[in-house]
């Protein structure tokens, strides 16, 4: 082999990946931006320049801002709960116990169930009449409790959050278990000798040591939560009414149900901009930026 092929080798092997990322990553981004300044709908190919009309319409779109609020509610409640439960479970399984691997293997199963199936499963469980959960509650209450989980405005968010927590707490648990196992024991022992209590050691040493991993886990889960779509689709379909419609669901309906092509482009772009701001802020706050 001569030297010339070698010199281009590093570009040849990275090129296919970059090409695909440009095709499916950057191209759609630019195209969305272009479309959002036009008057396109699926039925009418009106490519005339609309100026900022679509973006101005965004600000008057109450359903859009409500969908952002719904997404924020789910994220803000589910994320800390998953973190705390995951951390408690990781503490439980941190020390060796016989059969530990079997427990871990079983507990991870909810995470690999397709979210669309997870939503459907919880719809089954929470069925007001045929579901087992109302039966169990009724057993403890001493009288039948036909709770309408997916219809009652006060119960529909708990229903979504139960499903979320059930599916993703094991994910947090696995990551945090690995992080806790890597914490330097000698530091903890030294603190114990100094007479530091359990909580003091936990907050001063353990939490500080696992923070980088915890921050990445929060970021991964946070990014998943703000795009939540599947569970909503199969559990509540955004209902009752539009009460649990998240931003992803609303965007989907605008684009593929209302066929508002240009307007959907504007929404998609707004989401990307908002998300970039929030994520950049979060990465800075969590000290992940190098």
């Amino acid at each position, binding site marked *: 082999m001569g030297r010339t092929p070698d010199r281009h*080798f*590093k*570009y040849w*092997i*990275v090129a*296919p990946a*970059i090409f*695909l*990322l440009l*095709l*499916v*990553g950057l191209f*759609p*981004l630019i*195209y*969305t931006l272009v*479309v959002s300044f036009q008057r396109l709908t699926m039925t009418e190919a009106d490519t005339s320049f609309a100026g900022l009309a679509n973006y101005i319409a965004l600000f008057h779109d109450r359903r859009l801002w409500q969908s952002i609020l719904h997404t924020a509610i789910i994220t803000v409640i589910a994320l800390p709960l998953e973190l705390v439960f995951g951390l408690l479970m990781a503490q*439980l399984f941190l020390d060796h*116990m016989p059969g530990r691997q079997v427990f871990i*293997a*079983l507990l*991870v*199963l*909810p995470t*690999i*169930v*397709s979210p*669309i*199936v997870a939503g459907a*499963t*919880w719809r089954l*469980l929470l069925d007001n009449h*045929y579901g*087992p959960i109302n039966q169990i509650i009724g057993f403890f209450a001493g009288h039948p409790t036909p709770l309408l989980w997916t219809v009652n405005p006060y119960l529909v968010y708990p229903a979504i959050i139960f499903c979320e927590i*059930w599916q993703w707490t*094991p*994910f947090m648990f*696995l*990551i945090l*278990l*690995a992080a806790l196992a890597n914490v330097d024991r000698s530091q903890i022992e030294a603190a114990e000798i100094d007479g530091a209590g359990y909580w003091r050691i936990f907050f001063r040493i353990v939490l500080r040591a696992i923070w980088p*991993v915890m921050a*990445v886990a929060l970021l*991964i889960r946070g990014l998943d939560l703000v*795009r939540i*779509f*599947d569970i909503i*689709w*199969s559990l509540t379909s955004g209902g009752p009414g539009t009460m649990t419609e998240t*931003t*992803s669901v609303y*965007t*989907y309906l605008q*684009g593929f149900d209302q066929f508002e092509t240009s307007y959907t*482009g504007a929404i*998609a*772009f707004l*989401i*990307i901009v908002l*998300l970039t701001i929030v994520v950049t802020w979060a990465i800075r706050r969590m000290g992940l930026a190098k």
Partner: protein
Amino acid sequence: MTAALPAVPMMRRKGVRLALRYLIAVLLVIVFLFPIYWLFMMSFKTPGEIFAYPPVWYPKSLQLKSYIDLFPNGDAATVLNSLILAGASTVIAMILGTMAAYSLVRFKTGGENLAVWIISQRMVPPIAIVFPVFLLYVFFGWVDTYHGLIILYTAFSLPYVIWMMRGYIEDIPLELEESALVDGCSRWRVLWRVVFPMARSGLFATAVFTFIFAWNDFIFALVLTRTEVTTYTVQVTHYFGGQSNFWSKISAMSVLGTLPVFIAVATLQRYLVRGISMGAVKG
């Protein structure tokens, strides 16, 4: 002898602690597996048992009718579609991603900027991607085709694969590659014969996640398939009705789609656990 005495309550306390941990562990397993149990049992129930009040906690007999119903009209074949799409995109993403990661690690191609740009591609939510991709695919005539979805899944997995494989490739000793080069191997040969085999455990760990991502996808398949390459996740939602849902079909279809992944993960358990923890530590 007297010195051993205080050890007895200590031992007992340890025993109580362990018993308590077991109790909580078993309760956790029951809580977390009950939904899966209910889904599986639902698929074996008779229509009478599905709509029984109070609910039947386990079916009297294992009815396979819900499953048999899925085969004649080709509904069950959607699992095969999921398998083809997830399998093909995983293989392609692993090959292209590992090649790119090798270039980033060994030749510092594009520097830190390229690596950051690649990972930033993963932050864009699918709903923002799928809409323009749909318009692009209509233009190309790629809607409802295997290659259309395979390309999309591959591209969507690439940032994750590249990011993960960087860590594994960094761990390969440079001397191995150098000696292969001295022996007259071309760069391509080194890549195939040294880098890929050496990064094998990393490849498996990453591939498990890439596969699960594509397998579980719903939104891309919902928008980009019609009838030919419908995936199982989309098929499940076809049984939801306005007034009543076809629970026997929903549960049987869900089990058909869930079981292959459970089996795959059971076989690749150690890679999965390592993948999750490595992803957080290195990613």
